[in-house]
């Protein structure tokens, strides 16, 4: 039995877990408990992932043949737009912070909840409101502008632009509410004696993400507001007919949307840091560098938005600045990859599903990151911009990075949240399906981009068909893997074997409380003297 488990069982008889403390519907929907709010976000974001994934599958089915397969061009255009909107704002941005940030962060700093529990609840319901409004656009006929809402097309499109921009605006408000909560919690609720440089890396990741969210999201709100007004009232802020400049919209939009991609990946980085340490039973190599690189990304990430606009008519001088800064931001991710790899060295490795997802992450994200350096090269981007190469790049880092990290987090913290184990063999099987399925979905798209197939294309020249078919095949495998994961996790919630408080033998702080935790996280404050990564002490495995 682990040292931690021994201590826990000698303490007072356990409180009921947060699941059973109060079981009325009202106690769930109006909860102030950060753990329950995390579970609510889990339900909301998982539904969004499923919806966005369904859109993607339909798209890929349509792309099986060069012309019409199952839908017309208008439906296709609406589907890819909605796939992007739902995935970015209803899944990628809220998922890891909303679920695991909410659940783990207070426990990791020894607090009983976040700084503003009611604000936390509100952030969930604002998320729901934003999601409902965004999805109302579907009922209103759908929106077909692309998730980037470029003007003048989005100002003139007859589709449900107004609903969508309003919904996303509201989702942005939810984001800012959560971010303020995390920043203040990390600053003010750390247990006595826990310094910044002793925090788990996941906390740093959530904190860094929250800073980006607070600074960048208002600019998104502004862009959406202006597009909405242009669309609804022809205010012409970006309309050349009225003296406006469509390029200014692009600047405003990308000023937010480039940091947004770091909002999406940084929490994933935090998960990966935790997973690699716990499953190699090693402290993370270069803890400080990982922290500094998080802030490097947060800061420099704001200076690189122009690399989305190399062919919009930018001056070569400006392009040079953006290109160079984009290279700098890449180095911070490289630092982390180095640190994670070296953390494995000399470790006592437990080959489990979370670690397999770690490998999937390294396999896919590193490749995706390198293609990021490639598209940041100005001359190469001239060819690749707005082709499938870019689509493949961002899916490698977003899906191969963030989704893989999300799945790693789900499995890593499953025993923590539910007190049960998931079936390990099924986990290994589905993670293989997910990683391989993903690879075959998006690797052909690099080649499609090289060949010159533009993105957002409903019909395409016949020579591109076999790559599209291969990509759709991969997507089916990916979907199977995800569905399998969903199934066994749901079953394991109720029928999984009991896990004990710390089945992985991790040293990190959240494992020092019961699994699942009681309503107020702990009966007695756990020991925070021993560090979150103190694996070298006490010799041997727990």
């Amino acid at each position, binding site marked *: 039995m682990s040292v931690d488990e021994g201590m826990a069982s000698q303490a007072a008889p356990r409180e009921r877990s947060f699941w059973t403390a109060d079981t009325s519907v009202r106690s769930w929907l109006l909860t102030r408990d950060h753990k329950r709010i995390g579970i609510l976000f889990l339900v909301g974001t998982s539904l969004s992932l499923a919806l966005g994934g369904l859109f993607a599958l339909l798209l890929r089915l349509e792309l099986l043949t060069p012309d019409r397969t199952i839908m017309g061009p208008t439906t296709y255009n609406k589907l890819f737009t909605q796939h992007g909107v739902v995935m970015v704002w209803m899944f990628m941005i809220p998922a890891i912070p909303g679920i695991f940030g909410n659940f783990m962060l207070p426990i990791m700093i020894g607090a009983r909840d976040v700084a503003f529990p009611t604000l936390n609840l509100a952030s969930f319901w604002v998320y729901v409101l934003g999601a409902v409004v965004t999805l109302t656009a579907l009922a209103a006929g759908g929106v077909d502008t692309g998730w980037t809402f470029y003007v003048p097309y989005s100002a003139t499109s007859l589709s449900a632009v107004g609903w969508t921009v309003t919904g996303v605006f509201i989702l942005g408000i939810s984001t800012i509410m959560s971010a303020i909560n995390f920043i203040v919690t990390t600053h003010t609720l750390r247990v006595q004696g826990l310094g910044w440089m002793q925090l788990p890396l996941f906390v740093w990741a959530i904190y860094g993400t929250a800073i980006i969210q607070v600074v960048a999201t208002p600019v998104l709100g502004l862009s959406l507001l202006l597009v909405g007004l242009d669309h609804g009232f022809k205010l012409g802020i970006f309309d050349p007919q009225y003296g406006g400049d469509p390029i200014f919209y692009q600047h405003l939009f990308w000023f937010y949307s480039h940091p947004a991609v770091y909002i999406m990946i940084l929490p994933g980085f935090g998960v990966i840091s935790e997973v690699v340490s716990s499953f190699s039973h090693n402290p993370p190599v270069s803890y400080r560098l990982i922290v500094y690189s998080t802030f490097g990304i947060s800061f420099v990430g704001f200076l690189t938005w122009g690399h989305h606009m190399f062919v919009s008519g930018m001056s070569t001088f400006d392009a040079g600045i953006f290109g160079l800064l984009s290279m700098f931001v890449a180095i911070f991710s490289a630092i982390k990859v180095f640190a994670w790899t070296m953390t*494995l060295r000399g470790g006592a490795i437990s080959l489990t599903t979370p670690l397999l997802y770690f490998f999937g992450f390294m396999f896919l994200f590193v490749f995706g990151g390198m293609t990021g350096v490639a598209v940041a090269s100005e001359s190469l981007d001239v060819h690749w911009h707005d082709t499938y190469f870019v689509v493949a790049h961002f899916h490698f880092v977003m899906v191969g990075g963030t989704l893989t990290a999300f799945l790693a987090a789900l499995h890593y913290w499953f025993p923590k949240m539910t007190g049960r184990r998931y079936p390990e063999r099924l986990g290994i099987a589905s993670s293989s399906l997910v990683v391989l399925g993903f690879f075959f979905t998006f690797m052909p798209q690099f080649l499609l981009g090289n060949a*010159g197939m533009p993105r957002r294309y409903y019909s395409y*020249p016949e020579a591109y068909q076999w790559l599209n078919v291969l990509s759709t095949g991969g997507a089916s495998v990916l979907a199977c893997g995800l569905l399998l994961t969903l199934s066994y996790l749901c079953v394991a919630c109720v029928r999984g074997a009991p896990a004990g408080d710390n089945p992985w033998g991790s040293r990190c702080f959240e494992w020092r409380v019961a699994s699942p935790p009681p309503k107020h996280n702990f009966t007695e404050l756990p020991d925070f003297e021993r560090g979150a990564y103190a694996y070298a002490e006490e010799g*041997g495995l727990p």
Partner: protein
Amino acid sequence: MNELFRRLLMLPPQASSVARDVDTLHFALISVSVLGWLGVLSASIWFVVRGRRTGENGAPRGLRKFPSWLEPAVIGALLSGFVGVWLIGHAQYVHIQTPPRESLDVYVVAKQWMWSFAYEDGTASQHDLFVPARRPVRLLITSRDVVHSFFVPAFRIKQDAVPGRMTVAWFRATQPGSYPLLCTEYCGLSHSRMRGRVIALEPAHFEGWRRRFIDRDRPELSAISAGVGRARGATDDLASQGERVASERGCTRCHTIDGTPHLGPSWAGLYRSQVALQDGRRITADDAYLTRSMMDPLHELRVGFQAIMPSYLGELSAAETGALVAFIHSLERAPSAPRRAPLPYPSTTPVVVPAQRAPGKPGDSASPQLEVETIPTPATERP
């Protein structure tokens, strides 16, 4: 080596002066990246394998510190590599964005969902951009409505077409041929059908093509006018000429001739039929209506169709207009057999550069004998 990489990575032929250099950077970057990626993966797998063997029995782990110079060395190497890539990429980008001084200027106007081109001497064309091979061509690009993007994969060039602005691109085609042109900024319904070709001709042929279309008395008229009627001799009847004009001018992108519903009203059975207009009137589609529809299409919009047809006033000559009307006449009793499948990418007929010269004027120096030349449509295009 270059060719091997190009085929492996499925890049199009390197048909412009910049393509080869850009591809070289590409190949170098991909190679180093893949090696680095494999390095990271191998290291990880190695550490895991080692960890599995020693970890299970709880044996104390050995010295864990790796050499302290390793981390700065790796980061330094990566940073230098990234900056080096930037230097090369930026230099190439400056070259791609800076047209040479002695370029042939072409004005490119993008519009939902077609490309039109105009030269300084009044020559004009649509969908197909004719250029001389081996000479630099500067494109002055704008859009009439939303943002589009001018993309020729074989040239490795791209530039957005922004309404209210003029953007510049240039290229030098290294050999004659026909290269696909695609719109690559999402612009609505037919974004994926907004395609064309860049047709590079031998400089002599290009001059011939251009000169043939300049009527010295009426330089304001569009290029093809002089060619119609003379390309295949006067034996062609007007309706057949109209069929050719319809194809060359891209009318068939939006209008079918067999009754299949598409973006514009089908011409099958159109002539002398009753049409319902959006202003409530019902009129007969006679010659006058057909002509008005070409010159001022949005004035009498038919019920059930969007206001997207451009005006051809000043673009079609009288001869071409007449030919089109005659062609629509000939379809009065055409069977209306709508297909379930939508239209494929409209036909791109081979471009014919006529053999005979334009009727000479006194003092005309002998213009070079032009061959009948059919520029093959590339295999990547759907017929």
